[in-house]
Every structure is written in C-alpha cells, then in structure tokens.
C-alpha cells in the first residue's frame, strides 16, 4: 500500500523539516481541496452560517465568507496531516492536555468496559493513539468493507497498538452481540456517532443540531441502555501548533433500562451528545469535519439566500469528502 510509504515520508519530513516544511505541503493541499470539491466548499459556508445564527452572531463573529470556508478546509488539512504524522511514529512531537480521562481509567481499572462516542470533530484519531499509549483496550467500530484495509494499515504502522477495528455490517444482527462481548470483557468500543452508517436500517432520530433538524442514529444509545454499560464522549481538538486537548465526558454510568423506557432514555442521551457537539462547535468552530449537506432538506430553519449552495451538494455519506475519513 503506497499510502504507508507516503505516511512514513510525511513523518520523516515532519521530524527533519519540522513545521516549516509541513506548512509548505499543507497550504497548497488545502487550496486544492477547497477548489476541487465545490459541494464541500458550499457545505462549510452553510455550516458556518448555521453556527453563526445558532450562536446569536457570536461564532463566527462576522458573516462567513470565502476566506472562512478556506480557513475551515485548511484546519481539516492540518488535522489530517497531524494524524498521519502521529500514526507514522511522530506522536511524541505533539503535546497533549487531558481532561476527564480519569473516567476512562476508572472504568478500565475496574475491568468495566463501555461505549465511547466520538465525532468527525477535531482529531478523532488521537484518542485511539492515547488509548494505545495508556493500555486501554479500545475497539473502533467501522461499518465498511474498508475496515479490513484500515486494520492492516494501522497494524503495519504500529503492530503493538491495542487499538482494534471492529468490522461490522450495520444490517447484521451480530453487530450488537459483537459489541456486548467486548464490553463484557472490560473493553471499550468507540463509535463515531455523528454520521449514519451507509445502507443501514438504523433507527433514525431527528434532533436539532445548531438549530436545524439533522438525522442521527439511535443505535449507539440503545446499545448502552440495553447493555447497561457506561457511555462516554471523547473528543480531541487542536488547540495550537502541535497541541491537542483530549476531553472525555461521562454521559451515563450505565444501568440497564427496561425496554419500555429505553427509547425515550436513549433519545435523551442522544440529545446530550448533540448538545456536546454544539458546545465544541461554538468553542472550536473550524474543527467540525463533516463536509457535506449535514442537515435535513426542507427540515425547517434552512438558510435561504445563502448563495444557492444547496443545489450542487449531495446529502448522505457518499460525497467524496464524507468518505475520505479513515
């Protein structure tokens, strides 16, 4: 796989050339992305305008324009670059601040597993690397056949990694059983809960995100309620050059919820997860990395007169940007 070689090269460039060399690479790449994917460009402006309206004009502090979209894409490119560098062995060149990781250590220390919810926000690789560093058994749930490729990719970079990729088919009845077994063994299962797996027959809930209705999968929350296991959120944001902050928050300590109460309880947990996402967007507006039409079409609250950006963009997870994550 050529990307491993590219990755090692980037890690080498980072070590030998430092940030100066990296910024030479990153800016042209971001510029290319920005003009190559017009639908994504439109989606970032739509996102920033939605955020601005939701935050009462506070974030961003001015009406979003092209250069803000550019900044957003550049932020994504830097993030991707850092992820590659980290996986390529340059992990030690980053500085990490922690908040709330005691939750994780508490459960891991007691042999109690749980479900960790992440998002395509900030650097969603960093928690995996941190988990490997601290010996927390973490499985990453992936819903594509690419999961196979990703596993071998990570294993080649870091064979000692405690991180495992769970290859699951969202339509398979076995998904829940696979998660149950790992949680009961005291392991953690990480799910990026801000996107709906492609082609799944998931239970979908519509929740207001930044003031506009968006679709979320209820399954991760139903799983936690059915298993009665701890449910945590984990986000890792870039706070400066080579600096990251990893934050773990506890949504519920976990109790088995009777079936009749499960749906409303799962919905309430989903709403808290979405509220967490909103606060991150407010604090770190340029680290939300879903570059496609995120919101429900015609779901009310749609921004009119926003430059007609809706027309070219595709919904769902099949836009080039949406699929570019690991």
């Amino acid at each position, binding site marked *: 796989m050529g990307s491993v070689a590219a990755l090692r090269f980037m890690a080498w460039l980072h070590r030998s050339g430092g940030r100066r060399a990296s910024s030479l690479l990153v800016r042209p790449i971001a510029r290319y992305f920005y003009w190559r994917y017009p639908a994504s460009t439109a989606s970032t402006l739509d996102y920033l305008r939605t955020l601005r309206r939701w935050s009462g004009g506070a974030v961003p502090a001015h009406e979003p324009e092209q250069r803000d979209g550019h900044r957003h894409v550049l932020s994504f490119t830097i993030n991707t670059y850092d992820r590659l560098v980290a996986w390529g062995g340059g992990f030690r060149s980053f500085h990490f601040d922690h908040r709330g990781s005691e939750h994780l250590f508490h459960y891991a220390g007691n042999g109690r597993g749980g479900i960790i919810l992440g998002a395509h926000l900030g650097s969603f690789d960093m928690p995996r690397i941190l988990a490997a560093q601290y010996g927390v058994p973490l499985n990453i749930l992936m819903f594509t056949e690419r999961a196979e490729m990703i596993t071998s990719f990570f294993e080649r970079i870091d064979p000692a990694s405690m991180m495992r990729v769970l290859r699951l088919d969202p*339509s398979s*009845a*076995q998904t829940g*059983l696979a998660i*149950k077994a790992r949680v009961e063994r005291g392991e953690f299962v990480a799910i990026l809960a801000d996107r709906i797996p492609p082609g799944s027959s998931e239970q979908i809930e519509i929740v207001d995100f930044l003031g506009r209705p968006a679709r979320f999968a209820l*399954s991760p929350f139903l799983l936690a309620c*059915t298993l009665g296991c701890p449910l945590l959120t984990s986000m890792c944001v870039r706070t400066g050059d080579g600096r990251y902050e990893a934050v773990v928050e506890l949504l519920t300590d976990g109790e088995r919820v009777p079936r009749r109460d499960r749906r409303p309880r799962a919905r309430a947990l989903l709403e808290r997860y979405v509220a967490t996402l909103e606060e991150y967007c407010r604090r770190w507006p340029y680290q939300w990395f879903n570059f496609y039409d995120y919101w429900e079409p015609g779901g009310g609250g749609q921004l009119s007169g926003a430059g007609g950006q809706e027309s070219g963009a595709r919904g769902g997870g099949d836009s080039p940007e949406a699929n570019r994550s690991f």
Partner: protein
Amino acid sequence: MQTSDTIETDLKTLIVDALALEDIEPSDIETDAPLFVEGLGLDSIDALELAVVLEENYGVKIDDDPERNQVIFASVRNLAEFVRQNRAK
C-alpha cells in the same frame, strides 16, 4: 427435566415478551423459521436484547463467535438446542 419441545415453547414466549413484539403470538413463531432479517425481521439491538434475556433466564453465555452465533440464532429450534446443551439453570 424439560424436554426440548417445552424449551422451544418457552423460548417463543420469551422472544415475544422480551422484544415486545406486537401482533405476534408465541404460537405464530415457527420453530424452524429464521428469526432475523427475513424471518421475524429482528435487528441488531433485538439480537442483543434476546442474548441478554437468554443469559438471565438460562445462565447460558453468548459470546462473539459470528459463525457460532449464526447457527444459534438461526431459528427457535437451534436456540433451544443451544440452551439445552449449555444451560446452567
């Protein structure tokens, strides 16, 4: 000692109760019909629920061996066979 047939009847009741299946009586479930997707149309969360209830009721342990689970959850008959061989209570 319970016969396998009784376990099958019990399992059907358990499935309907645990999964709160509406408009389905335990006797409507065919012993050899598939439970998931094309059969009763149960999903991943239902499988999890059923596994938890089976463990509580019969003291069996359901692990994450996909091939084995494929067989165990194929039908009520297979489930009953699994319970009969592995039950602790």
